[in-house]
């Protein structure tokens, strides 16, 4: 009897021992994500890094969807995992990660590795990466919303590239009607309207270009304003009244869906980030050579506006490979890597000194447009509770786009909920 019990108990105990095993943390882990060309780029860069330093790196591939990607970092960081050691963060996460104390301050890393901060855009470093005079992250690449358009179609039908929303709508309505005869799947304008972070980025551009926005001069959040209501109504009308955006704009349209719709030749205008440029002009792209890019339209009495996006690199405070991680950080931000990033992917580098580089200017013709867009960049709030606020706003904007709620009512509710949320957390 005793023997039997021993067997049984030791079975239970050995089961526990098996679970106790820790995964392999011996190598440097670098979390990146995105479309396939981005992954290929990182794998190439990591290969070069390993060749020159002998440090092996695991590339952790994350989903492109921003919310899912954020979750992939928050789970290991909140539980103080040693991996990933180094990762890319969306601009809006940096503030949260700093407040949560998940990021290693980079000041000593910069000193030790001889990185010159002067080579980066100062306003972005100030707005995004610096907290209480300490540096926590650095931009790998900067993003901003752009308007892509089919040059060939505008020429064919005799339109100029639009500078106001009104011009965009007029040309889109007219061209869509005539293109539909050949192509029943053709739409005038595709953008990101699904219920996720991208919706906020798009909304911000509609709003700021109409003299609205979500932060007032005093730094507090204001969403229920006449300008914002007007902008939200425009987003709604583009889908319903003018019918130039597909009905699934608010259910399925995220970056990649809009990019592919445009790339298949099914759209005249597209709002997207700079990454789409290289893909639109890829060898297999049906719209290769027919695409042009410009700043996003504004309201008749408004300013051009572009949501500031981009991905910043930081090192986990729980990393067990900080020295290696800082070497990788330096490598990723080096002139050569950043130049490769611009040439291979068509993205705008985090370093400002690259904007003078002749090779880049030759291959990325819209660099000056990007620079201009940075000057108009609309930043999202830097509160640590941004995710909660964004979630509230997403829900109410989505209700407007699905026709369930009026812009006035939705923004009023959003305003109320945002205020409640902030009040509760700041008490």
């Amino acid at each position, binding site marked *: *009897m005793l023997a*039997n*019990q021993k067997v*049984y108990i030791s*079975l*239970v105990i050995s*089961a526990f021992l*098996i*679970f*106790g*095993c*820790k*995964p392999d943390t011996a190598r440097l882990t670098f979390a990146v*994500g*995105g*479309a*396939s060309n981005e*992954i290929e780029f990182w*794998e190439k860069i990591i290969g070069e890094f390993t060749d020159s330093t002998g440090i092996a790196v695991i*590339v*952790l*591939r994350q*989903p*492109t*969807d921003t919310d*899912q*990607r954020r979750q*992939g970092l928050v*789970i*290991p960081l*909140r*539980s*103080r*995992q040693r991996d990933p050691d180094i990762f890319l963060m969306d601009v809006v996460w940096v503030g949260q990660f700093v407040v949560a104390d998940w990021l290693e301050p980079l000041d000593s890393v910069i000193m030790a590795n001889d990185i010159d901060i002067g080579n980066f855009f100062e306003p972005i470093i100030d707005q995004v990466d610096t907290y209480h005079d300490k540096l926590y992250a650095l931009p790998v690449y900067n993003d901003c919303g752009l308007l892509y358009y089919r040059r060939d179609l505008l020429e064919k039908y005799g339109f100029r590239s639009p500078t106001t929303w009104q011009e965009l709508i007029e040309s889109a309505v007219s061209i869509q009607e005539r293109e539909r005869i050949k192509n029943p*799947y053709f739409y005038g304008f595709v953008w990101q309207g699904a219920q996720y972070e991208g919706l906020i980025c798009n909304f911000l551009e509609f709003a700021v270009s109409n003299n609205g926005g979500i932060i007032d001069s005093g730094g507090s959040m204001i969403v229920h304003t006449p300008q914002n209501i007007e902008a939200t109504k425009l987003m709604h009308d583009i889908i319903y009244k003018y019918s130039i955006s597909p009905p699934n704009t608010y259910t399925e349209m995220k970056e*990649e*869906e809009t*990019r*592919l719709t445009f790339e298949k030749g099914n759209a005249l205008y597209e709002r997207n980030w700079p990454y789409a440029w290289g893909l639109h002009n890829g060898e297999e792209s049906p719209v290769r050579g027919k695409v042009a890019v410009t700043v996003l339209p504004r309201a008749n009495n408004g300013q051009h506006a572009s949501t500031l996006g981009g991905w910043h690199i930081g090192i986990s405070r729980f990393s067990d490979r900080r020295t290696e991680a800082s070497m990788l950080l330096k490598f990723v931000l080096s002139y050569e890597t950043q130049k490769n990033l611009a040439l291979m992917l068509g993205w705008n580098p985090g370093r400002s000194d690259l904007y003078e580089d002749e090779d880049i200017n030759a291959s990325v013709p819209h660099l000056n447009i990007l620079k201009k867009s940075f000057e108009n960049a609309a930043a999202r709030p830097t509160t640590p509770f941004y995710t909660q606020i964004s979630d509230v706003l997403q829900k109410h904007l989505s209700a407007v786009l699905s026709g369930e709620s009026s812009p006035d009512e939705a923004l009023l509710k959003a305003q109320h909920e945002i205020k409640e949320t902030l009040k509760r957390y700041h008490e």
Partner: protein
Amino acid sequence: MNEKRIKNILKLSGICFVLIFSLVPFIWMVIISLNERPDFLLHEGFRLTVANFVDILTMGNLHFLDYLKNSFVIASTTALISSLIGAVAAYAISRITFTGKTLLVLTVLALSMFPQICIVGYLFKFMTNLGMINTYGALILPYIAWSLPLALWIQMSYFSRIPRELDKAAQVDGASRLQTLFKIVLPIAAPGFLSTILLLFMFCFNEFLFALMLTADHKARTVPVGISLFQGLHGELPWGYIMAASVISCVPVILIALIFQRRIISGLTHGAVKQ
């Protein structure tokens, strides 16, 4: 005569309904997985390819094989341990009288009704403190607890059908309780034990919310989470990959369902109906 015809028509249409209802969406999945593009109906029509399968099985950075391995290890370990623990407890409950027995059974049953969301937030913090997030243990331990009520329930009903005289005979021969269980009762209730293992394997193989919260990457992430987050790995929803991965992941559970359908059905009905 007339009624017999009605009955036959009803039966035939019923069979058609079951077949169409169960199989059509499933077949659609297989078709997409074997096609070059998911929107083929709008374009050039069906173009057969196995590239989706080759890709997900060979491209290391998609981690599909890791997910599959994790799922298998986690689900089978859980099924085995939970069934054993359940068997021992069920034996004690069905054979030995002790105070608080009814309370125990009722509590276990009541706990099995908890929606998973009610415990996942706490488990996340708990596993975080133990440093076990993103390990097999982070899933196996809660899965054992979560599947135990079912393991207990099914096996209790099986054991209660085995005559106690058999136990008594064994004990007269000097066997301990545990020996009686493993040498006499469990072999007779082997079908029940097998049903339990199969059902628990399926439950754990399919579980989503715990796996979503308690894992972070391919080191412990299971198939359902992998498939739900496939999104974006190749930009757009890569339907070909998603469906190919789904087809492969369905193979084990469908084989189990088809081969052991009798076992599973009896397991389910013992669990559900004997109340």
